[in-house]
């Protein structure tokens, strides 16, 4: 049991390939939407599809889904810090 915990979960090849296909699909959607509906949708697509792609890489390729909750908590904390930085900077910029 300890052995399994120490060496982690083996992600099946099929799952990894599916995630990769999903990432390629999302990239295609992002490129399509950004070029065809540039003025309307480029920024909303950037703000939704890109974090989704990053999340797929974090959770599956980087094994975060199978790590102890502590790891997920740390990553979450760092992202929250980054978002606070971005939020405060924009609050400053927009009130000058």
């Amino acid at each position, binding site marked *: 049991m300890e052995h399994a915990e*120490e060496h982690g979960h083996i992600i099946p*090849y099929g799952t*990894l390939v599916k995630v990769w296909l999903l990432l390629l699909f999302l990239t295609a959607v992002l490129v399509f939407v950004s070029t065809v509906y540039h003025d309307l949708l480029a920024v909303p697509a950037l703000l939704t599809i890109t974090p989704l792609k990053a999340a797929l890489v974090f959770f599956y*390729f980087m094994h975060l889904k199978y790590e102890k909750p502590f790891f997920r908590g740390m990553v979450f904390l760092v992202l929250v810090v980054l978002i606070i930085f971005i939020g405060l900077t924009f609050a400053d910029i927009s009130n000058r």
Partner: protein
Amino acid sequence: MSTEPVHAHPVHPQPVHPHPVHKDYQGSKLGMWLFLFTEILLFGGLFLLYSVYRATYPLDFRAGGQHLNTFIGVANTVILLTSSLTVALAISAMQKGNRKLTMACLGITIAFALMFLVNKYIEWTGEIGRGIYPNGPALLKLPNGEKIFYGLYYCMTGLHGLHVLAGVIALSIVLDFVRRGKITGTDFIKLENVGLYWHLVDVIWIFLLPLLYLAA
């Protein structure tokens, strides 16, 4: 110190361990993640800088983005996503004890990384050829916002390119470890940590593509 007899401690000789020395895999991975956090905040700072200037010069940034080679940007995205897959496959293969598949996957990953750098070279020489480089004739004629856009473009893709280069070196070292049997199906934390680094390089590019090439 030197007056102490040499044979002061041999009362309880250490038994020879029947198993290899304990390694703290969780701690090792934690250390790698901490390093990745500094990388996230490093690039996060650049993303923030980009966003603020983009909000200040929306039209200039848009013009700058339209002059970039979107095809190469998208091609490099596909290359990096696929190389991320091959690293992830290499780790699963190593966990299953399949050394040959691991080495093949790592070799393909390195080939993809080099392809990425070749594309970057083609892209940059194209832009430099058009006179867009620091103090270049074409760059000096551009409005201020577009100058900032290209400055950020070169800094962000350049810094990312250096990370890809570092990744090639790290992946090559790990490939050699696998070849020499220093990384095995039960001790593969080095491979896992280099994989984590490589995926983060991929994630950074996932953000650079829309910021620089698509939504600008």
